[in-house]
């Protein structure tokens, strides 16, 4: 029984953290937010240089072939720095889907996987659990769900309408399109399993980002409360303020092992994968919302301004909480599991 990550995975995520600290500083995020596409070609290029776009791509297509456990550490860093890029959709989700297409579709893999690896392609993923498709306008290829089938579309085959999100780094589009034999790349009987795998990985990635965001909002609250003075001393010395932040630390501390079990179960395709992922998403979402609320309270009126960095992380947390399955969706998956006849629950069943 050991929750420790491999040394090389920790070393890689440490290097990504140092990279993002420089390349994704809040002032850069603001600049990218203001652009029309909301994306920076330069940033994407640098992410590719770090190997992030190649992480899930198999070695034969120029990638690294990493698994969900390695990703979960990276997702946390991407969350902590609120990276304004749909890297995860392309490099984690779309790559997962393309990797598992039937053998007959080798040409799609050959075309797209090397481009994903070298950072030259963006792929958007549309699933009915989300009303919008993130980054469809920027995408070179859009993978869409239709009755459990997988369809691959280029931009000339779809009509897009932009729907602005409160999180300006999310670029959401309503996608109108017509499925046809020509657009279908995977039939429903195989597609069902693939879409389930995409959904669980997307929710897992969301949970990990939310854990990272919680830590960031906590850190911002700590910094602010240590420097801001009232009544002649730092507000962080007052118990009421301390307890706000301690509550966030408790939630964050207990969301992490839940997240890691979900990643472990996902990498190993365990039967309880979906339940564990839903648990992680709920625990992380709750921690992040509490982190947003409490950090804002600690920031006082400054927390309500555009100027204070906290807003960028709060907005990401508010949005991610309901992306790839809102709380009702994930709670239902857990309720269905624990309320089923013969469910194995209780002491000794946690790792069954």
């Amino acid at each position, binding site marked *: 029984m*050991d*929750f420790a990550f491999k040394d090389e995975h920790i070393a890689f995520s440490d290097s990504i953290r140092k990279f993002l600290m420089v390349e994704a500083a809040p002032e850069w995020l603001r600049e990218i937010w203001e652009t029309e596409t909301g994306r920076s070609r330069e940033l994407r290029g640098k992410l590719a240089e770090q190997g992030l776009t190649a992480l899930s791509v198999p070695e034969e297509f120029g990638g690294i072939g990493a698994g969900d456990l390695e990703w979960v550490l990276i997702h946390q860093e991407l969350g902590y720095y609120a990276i304004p890029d749909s890297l995860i959709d392309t490099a984690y989700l779309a790559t997962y889907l393309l990797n598992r297409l039937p053998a007959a579709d080798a040409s799609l893999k050959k075309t797209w996987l090397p481009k994903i690896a070298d950072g030259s392609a963006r792929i958007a993923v549309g699933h009915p659990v989300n009303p919008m498709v993130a980054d469809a306008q920027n995408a070179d290829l859009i993978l869409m769900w239709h009755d459990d089938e997988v369809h691959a579309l280029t931009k000339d085959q779809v009509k897009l309408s932009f729907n602005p999100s409160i999180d300006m780094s999310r670029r959401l589009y309503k996608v109108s399109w017509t499925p046809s034999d020509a657009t279908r790349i995977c039939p429903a009987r195989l597609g069902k399993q693939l879409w389930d795998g995409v959904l669980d990985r997307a929710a897992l990635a969301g949970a990990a980002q939310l854990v990272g965001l919680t830590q960031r909002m906590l850190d911002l609250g700590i910094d602010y409360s240590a420097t801001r003075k009232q009544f002649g001393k730092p507000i962080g*010395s007052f118990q009421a303020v301390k307890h706000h*932040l301690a509550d966030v630390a408790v939630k964050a501390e*207990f*969301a992490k092992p839940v997240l890691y079990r979900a990643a472990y179960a996902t990498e190993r395709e365990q039967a309880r994968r979906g339940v564990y992922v839903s648990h992680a998403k709920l625990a992380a979402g709750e921690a992040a919302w509490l982190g947003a609320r409490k950090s804002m309270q600690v920031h006082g009126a400054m927390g309500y301004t555009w100027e204070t960095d906290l807003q960028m992380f709060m907005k990401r947390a508010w949005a991610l909480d309901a992306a790839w399955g809102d709380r009702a969706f994930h709670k239902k998956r857990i309720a269905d599991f624990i309320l089923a006849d013969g469910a194995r629950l209780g002491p000794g069943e946690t790792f069954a």
Partner: protein
Amino acid sequence: MRLEYTERQNKFRAEIREWLAANVPKQPLQSFDTEEGFRQHREWEHRLNGGHWSAVTWPEHLGGRGVDLIEWLIFEEEYWRAGAPLRVNQNGIFLLAPTLMEYGTEEQKKRFLPRMAAGDDIWAQGWSEPGAGSDMAAIRCKAIRDGDHYVINGQKTWSTRAVWADWLFGLFRSDPDSVRHHGLTFVLLPLNLPGITIRPIKQLNGLPGFAEIFFDNVRVPVENRMGEEGQGWNVAMATAGFERGLMLRSPGRFQQTAKALVDLYKAEEKNVDDCSLRDAVVKSWMDAEAYTLATYATAGRLRKGEHIGPEASTNKIFWSELDLSMHETAMRLLGPRAELMEGSPDGGNIGHWLEGFLFAQAGPIYAGSNEIQRNIIAERMLGLPR
């Protein structure tokens, strides 16, 4: 990362499961806060010790099995799963023993630990005083050196199990001119010494689960001191961290309650109009799982020799709030029947939920109130100014 049990661990689980199935009393024992119940629980400790199960993490020559923390968690899971009796000697086995292992002399270990494992000596704790609750460094009860004895005068309170226990461990002020956490000494003493008066305190459930203890020139031999004179605070604090927190409330307890709550919800589902109750049941299962996962993760780190710091304080808050919210959910599920005491003829065997609900009220208060824990988290884990 490896989230699976080893063959050895699975065998250990099977062994304890089999022993418990054959030995756990079919009829629940009376509360150990009654005289008869205390006697029954002492007898159960004898039986546990007969199977070498009473203190599995201790070395074999002191009555244990020398198992590691993961196996201890497995033992606890099976213990709660089997519905085995509460541990009347938990003050001794889970709170005092780790300190004795670290600070006790070999002579003290041999003298106290095997009798503790056997249930021959049941221990009570003597920390709090009327003027020293959350502020434990305000202790005033004196233990003044007189030759080869300490002479104890003063009062302790909220001493759990003290009404029928045999021994007491606690902190006393040995230097009358000292202040705060200086000049304190850790002393072990039998509760039948001349000059000791024990006054039981009724708890919410009407039973005397703790007591006040008055000391009037009570003479305790110097060899009953643990650690150095004046170093009592450090002795008490050194093991007050994670291991003791973990041993005080292992996850098995909460997993068992969460499972019972799921069963209760399924039994009551057709009568439930409050749609927030399903949510609360889901949350109970999630949080009991989270507590289990976090505990295994930490036990894994400790086993590798890593040190656990102030983040241990997050545990106390998490389990006490979890226990409270699970029992609140059960009370809401039971509706107008929830108030019925155990033994109510038409209640339908639900009184344990009420009993658990009452006990859960104390969780955020004892073992360092949750406000104190939040201060520790904020100051020592998050680095906020004092």
